[in-house]
């Protein structure tokens, strides 16, 4: 058993955004699960320490792109066909609103914004989704009761559900993803989405698509399609949630040093942790 890290050796003052272990045990999301299994100390810093960090520029860009895609998806739902100008206005509006709310750290805000819009232009040009296709759901909050399995409630937000139960998740990335890698690294998330869809509709999903918008010089759209989640994947997810519950109960927050530390926002705090 590992004791919970103390903040005594960390000089960054704690904010008031920390959550309690009981709260974090009452339900679980795919992103929280992924953070926990990537590095438990990062999880502790992010969810329990109360230390607040400014939003990285890349995350701000991704959120603004998400908001614009949500606008596009909702417009199709209401049988509207927004012009490129409308979509650009939606992107600019989202960018400004989120900047106000999150105070992200930019080195070149205008450059980042242009990158975001170029990604969207590429997406609207190359998207496999027909412009008149009506979604089954858009940016929808759903939850799955896993108490029958002795696990907390699974919660999440589905970016888009295409007709026939095809779940779509949008991502932005700096690197061109390898399909097998994407399938592997997002397995917990996609299996979670499948469970959420099944619980909230009473039907099985027909498949899952990851739409990755790649921030290369010439932006790209990579669509990775996977079949419905298998029983083995669901079992694997349950094992992951079980480990999450047990880890939190015994306050096991050991660090996992590795390549991911290069982009960790808590690198300095981690170095001082004991």
């Amino acid at each position, binding site marked *: 058993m590992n004791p919970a890290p103390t903040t005594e050796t960390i000089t960054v003052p704690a904010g008031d955004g920390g959550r309690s272990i009981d709260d974090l045990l009452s*339900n679980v*999301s795919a*992103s*929280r699960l992924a953070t926990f299994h990537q590095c438990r100390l990062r999880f502790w810093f992010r969810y329990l320490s109360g230390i607040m960090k400014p939003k990285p520029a890349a995350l701000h860009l991704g959120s603004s792109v998400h908001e614009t895609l949500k606008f596009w998806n909702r417009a199709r*739902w209401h049988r509207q066909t927004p012009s490129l100008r409308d979509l650009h206005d939606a992107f600019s509006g989202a960018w400004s*609103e989120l900047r106000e*709310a999150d105070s992200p750290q930019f080195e070149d805000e205008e450059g980042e914004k242009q990158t975001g819009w170029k990604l969207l232009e590429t997406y609207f040009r190359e998207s496999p989704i027909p412009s008149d296709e009506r979604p*089954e*759901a*858009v*940016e*929808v*909050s*759903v*939850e799955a*009761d896993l108490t029958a399995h002795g696990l907390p409630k699974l*919660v*999440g*937000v*589905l970016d888009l*559900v295409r007709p026939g139960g095809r779940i779509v998740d949008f991502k932005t990335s700096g690197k061109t993803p390898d399909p097998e890698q994407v399938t592997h690294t997002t397995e917990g998330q996609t299996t979670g989405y499948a469970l959420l*869809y099944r*619980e*909230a*509709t*009473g*039907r099985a999903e027909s498949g899952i698509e990851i739409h990755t918008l790649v921030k290369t010089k010439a932006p790209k759209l990579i669509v990775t399609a996977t079949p419905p989640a298998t029983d083995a994947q669901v079992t694997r997810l349950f094992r992951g949630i079980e480990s999450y519950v047990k880890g939190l109960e015994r306050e096991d927050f050991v660090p996992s040093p590795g390549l991911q530390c290069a982009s960790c926002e808590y690198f300095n705090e981690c170095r001082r942790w004991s």
Partner: protein
Amino acid sequence: MAVKLIANYAKRLGLPGYSSHQFSVSVETELQNVTDVAGESARLYESLQKAVDDQMQQTGFVPPDGYGMNGGQANGNGHQAGNEAGISDKQLDLINRIVRENNANKTDIENMAIQMFGGGVRTLNRMQASNLIDELFEKYPRRNGNGGNGNGRGNYQRQPARA
């Protein structure tokens, strides 16, 4: 050899209080004239439609406002009895609350659900109900006070998914 014609007519109609009723009639008949399938099926359609319409004018029990909102109908998870994926009582309660606090017209909400999902509020599954609630928050943003988060949900707490 006898040739059979099987016909079914079904109709679902919305009722107040987010309820609906449906009725269908099926018949199986031996086709007298195999060269007049179209004529025979038109006659059956007219006859079945009339039979269904006549019956559906009797609405039977129509739930009053607030019916089933106190948890009496729900199972332990707040789900509708008999339909595990159906709209939950909590979701219905929230929709009713938005309607009440905004003096909204229930028929408008019902029509919104039909336009978005092809069915009335009580026919929605939980995912659809969640998206309908999002739409209602867009249409009826918070009316007063401070401390909102800019997404129009200041007056209502959904206990949304928290990452």
